[in-house]
C-alpha cells in the first residue's frame, strides 16, 4: 500500500445550499490528517465558499469559511480557483477570504492529470 498519494478535491457547490460543502470539508481534513498531499480546486458555484462576509447564521447554518483558515495547520497550501468561474459570477479575487492560485479553465485538465486521486465534491 502506498503511504502517500496526492489528492485533488474539486469543490463545485455553494457553501450553504445543504450539508454537502461541510461534509466535503470533513473528508478533506481527514485526508490531510492522514498525512496525504491535499490540493483544493474551486470551480463553478464552489467559488462562493471562499467569499468574504458570509452570514450563514441568519439561515441557521454554520460558518464554514473559518475552516479554510485552518487549512494551513493541516499543511494544505495549494488552493486553486478557476478564473472563469469567478468572472462569470462577478467575484473579484480581493473579495475572497484568503490568497489563492488562479487557474484558467483550459489548464484544469493538466492540473488533474498529475494527481493520484481526483475527488469531485
Amino acid at each position: 500500500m502506498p503511504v502517500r498519494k496526492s489528492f485533488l478535491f474539486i469543490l463545485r457547490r455553494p457553501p450553504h445550499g445543504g450539508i454537502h460543502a461541510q461534509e466535503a470539508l470533513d473528508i478533506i481534513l481527514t485526508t490531510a490528517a492522514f498525512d496525504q498531499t491535499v490540493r483544493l480546486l474551486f470551480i463553478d458555484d464552489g467559488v462562493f465558499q471562499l467569499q468574504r462576509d458570509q452570514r450563514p447564521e441568519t439561515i441557521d447554518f454554520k460558518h464554514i469559511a473559518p475552516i479554510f483558515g485552518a487549512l494551513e495547520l493541516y499543511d494544505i497550501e495549494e488552493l486553486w480557483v478557476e478564473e472563469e468561474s469567478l468572472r462569470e459570477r462577478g467575484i473579484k479575487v480581493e473579495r475572497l477570504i484568503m490568497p489563492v492560485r488562479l487557474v484558467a479553465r483550459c489548464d484544469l485538465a493538466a492540473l488533474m492529470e498529475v494527481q493520484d486521486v481526483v475527488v469531485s465534491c
Partner: protein
Amino acid sequence: MKFAIQINSAPYQTQGSDTAFQFIRAALRNGHEIVRVFFYHEGVYNGLGYAMPPDDERPVVKRWSDLAREHGIDLVICISAAQRRGLLSREEAVRVGKADTDLAEGFRIAGLGLWVEACLNADRFLIFGG
C-alpha cells in the same frame, strides 16, 4: 485491478446507487477486486435496513446486503454522515438510548479514515452519484 468506490446518492433518488451496483457486479465478473464501498452524503440511505420496496421492484438495500454476503465486500457507511441523518449502529443506538439499529445486514458504520485507506489501497477510485 483494485477499485475503491464512493456512493453519494440515496437509493431511488438518482441513478448513482444503481450504476455503482452494476459497475461493481461487472468488475467482479471480470476478475477485478473491490477494496471497499464507502457511502457518504445521501448515500448513507443505502444502508437503511427497514427499506421494504414492493416485491416487483429491485430491492436496492437488500441487493447490497446480498453482494456483501456473496463476495465479502466491505460496505462502510460514514459515521458522521449517518448519525446526522438518523442512521445509527447498534452500539451508538444503545449509547444514546434509542430503540435499535436501522442498519441493514452486511453494512458497518465507521469513520472517514477508512475512506482514505481505501483510496490508498486501490488502483482506481470512483465516485457515483454526484
